[in-house]
């Protein structure tokens, strides 16, 4: 569409992650928004409320009575054929827990924005990924953005992926609380025409429509369960090529190219790599630059999409290195590594590799603390020590609590 390209009116604005998410919902022309306040994601809903009040966006803006209601409203509206946007943080994500499986099980492409927050106790505004990660096996597409631009882009891509007839799955589009949600950066907003080209109107094949009556979610007998579960599992597995295809299409229309699964940073000759998700990647890049100046062969692999989990890609990629240090930023109490939950999945993905790297887990960025440069250096040293030793000292290190 060469002629269309000439008339494209993009603009660059300075906004934070929360507002970038709200902008994405506006560009997607959502029909129903279900809001409930909890920090830090609230700013997204504040921005949307203002857009509706200004008449910039025509949507039903519902102030729900809880997160459980938010997700139920989203479920009902999506089931009726509307494009739906909701969101939450921390314990709010968990208050709605009951709805995650019903929404993915009824194959409703609800979109939920998450700005991470620690879980209680005690109340803490900081970012930890445990809130969203605790729902990771409920059949939602899920991934983390590391800055506001990527958040905007991920929201648009997630709508397109989730609403694709070959997929029909809900999406959790996650960003770190504060590190992404409240850091203001330059974000390029597209021309509405580009969005129109990229994101067709939402049309569910079987909405609640009196002209074509259907029953959603009737009671089943035990033997009717497995085929339905298998179908949902296949949808999750089968959407991987669709996700790649849509990332390509996004690059073609918007000119920003993302690998659907992994971002690699300075990994060409790297021997040790950090493996992480989300906003701490920005600091990691700086730390790696500093360490590179000292001649350390260190790089980073950032997981962009955790559901569906790119097992083959993680296996192939991480097998190229000598030591992998998983930065968790989530709680997996009593888990296989007694640390977080990312380790277990990365280790499982590597199990069939003929050339397994050493792998260890770092509990860093907990409570929403920044992972400072010297902590990256400390972690890198632990990885180098393990490389020399040919053996890890232990599976999980709590960064800042050890020598």
């Amino acid at each position, binding site marked *: 569409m060469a002629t269309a390209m000439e008339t494209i009116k993009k603009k660059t604005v300075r906004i934070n992650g929360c507002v970038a998410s709200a902008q994405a919902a506006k560009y997607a022309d959502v*029909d*129903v928004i*279900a809001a409930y306040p909890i920090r830090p994601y609230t700013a997204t809903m504040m921005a949307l409320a203002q857009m509706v009040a200004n008449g910039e966006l*025509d*949507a*039903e803006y*519902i*102030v*729900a*009575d*809880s997160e*459980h*209601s*938010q997700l*139920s*409203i*989203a*479920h*009902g*509206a*999506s*089931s*009726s*054929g*509307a494009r*739906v946007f909701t969101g939450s943080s921390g314990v709010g994500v968990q208050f709605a827990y*009951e*709805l995650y499986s*019903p929404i993915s099980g*009824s194959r409703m492409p609800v979109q939920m924005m998450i700005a991470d927050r620690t879980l209680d106790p005690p109340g803490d505004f900081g970012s930890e990924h445990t809130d969203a990660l605790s729902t990771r096996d409920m059949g939602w597409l899920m991934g983390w953005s590391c800055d506001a631009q990527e958040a905007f882009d991920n929201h648009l891509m997630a709508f397109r992926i989730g609403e694709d007839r070959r997929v029909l799955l809900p999406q959790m589009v996650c960003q770190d609380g504060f590190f992404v949600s409240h850091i203001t950066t330059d974000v390029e907003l597209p021309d509405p025409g580009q969005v129109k080209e990229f994101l067709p*109107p939402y049309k569910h094949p079987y*909405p*609640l*429509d*009196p*002209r*074509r*009556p*259907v*029953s*959603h*979610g*009737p*009671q*089943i*007998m035990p033997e*009717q369960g497995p085929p339905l579960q298998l179908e949902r599992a296949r949808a999750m597995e089968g959407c991987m090529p669709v996700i790649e295809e849509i990332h390509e299409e996004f690059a073609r229309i918007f000119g920003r190219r993302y690998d659907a699964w992994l971002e690699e940073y300075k990994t060409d000759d790297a021997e040790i790599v950090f493996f992480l998700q989300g906003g701490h990647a920005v600091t990691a890049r700086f730390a790696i630059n500093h360490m590179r100046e000292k001649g350390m062969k260190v790089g980073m692999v950032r997981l962009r999409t955790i559901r569906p989990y790119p097992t083959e890609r993680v296996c192939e990629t991480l097998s190229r290195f000598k030591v992998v240090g998983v930065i968790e930023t989530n709680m997996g109490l009593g888990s296989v590594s007694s640390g977080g939950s990312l380790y277990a999945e990365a280790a499982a993905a590597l199990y069939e590799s003929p050339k397994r790297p050493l792998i260890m887990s770092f509990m860093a960025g907990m409570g929403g603390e920044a992972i400072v440069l010297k902590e990256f250096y400390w972690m890198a040293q632990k990885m180098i020590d393990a490389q020399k030793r040919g053996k890890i000292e232990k599976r999980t290190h709590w960064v800042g609590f050890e020598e």
Partner: protein
Amino acid sequence: MPAIEVQRQTLPILGNPNQGARFYNPDLPASEPFVPGHRTCAGCGPSIQYRMTSKASGDNTILVGPTGCMYVANSSYLCTPYNVPWAHTQIGSAGSFTAGVAAAYEAMIRKGKYKGTFPNVICEAGDGSASDIGLASISGALYRNHDCLIICYDNEQYANTGIQASSRTPYGGMTTFSPPGPKVPEAKTLYPKDLARMMAAGHPHCYVATASVGYPIDLMNKVRKGLNHKGAAYLMIYTPCQKGFVYETPRSIDLGRLVVECGLYPMWEWNPEKREYDYSFRPQTMRPVAEYLKLQGRFGHLHAEHIANLQKFANQQWQMMGVQLPEALIKSADPKNQVNMAASAEAEAVAQTL
């Protein structure tokens, strides 16, 4: 793009010349959105209500079914009794899921994404959903005034889970969570949550009414009034449960009348325009509560004092509606004028062996 005006339905009110009469021949709409083929018990009050309600609302209707009997026993995969769109939702999501459906249609019609008249959006919540776990979600939907009708089919217990007490279970009602025993001879010690009045008081802009399967035309008209009301409406309907109340199957409709006649289920409407209660519904007769209680096994353990307590409660209900109490009912509130249920000794023994 300019917003498209949302067209809404107006359903005619049915003629009801002989309200309260035992026999009459009503002129009913032909549509049957709720058809046979479900797995509810014989004489199931909630499913009788379901048929009447959906018949009143017609084919341009969307039904929302939070978990409860009318989900579990009604809908079987590949074989559901709904001729109109229906969706299950979680037991705590009654009001919220319904709000989502209504909001979706507002937006889709306004934005030209759906071409048609706004559907009747009806939620069929059991009393467990409506009075306990989904209370906040329903209050939210009423407060926000989505154009929908939320029905509580009130069988006064959690029935499909095997008869457990809800906030609507009456004083003296035996359930598996409120059994009688030497320490608690009356079984349920708490009086039911006054759910419908709570909804009217808290959401006075809504049409709110109580109804009973004993008065089908009245019930169907209240459904239509609720649907015609632009905004949210709430209807609480007495629907006896043969399995939980333990009565002779053919007596469901009979109980639906007796419960009103004995004052345990006040019938009223809340008029949102005038902001006042309408107590003009009058049953043909007034009866002592014992006539209603004695037909049901769930009250078989009651002693004279418990029956008197229930009579006292019923008398208060009559008085709230401004009804002059006959001398006989005042006397019935005195335990001296009551006798133990005939089966009370046996009922206690049975309950204790469970």
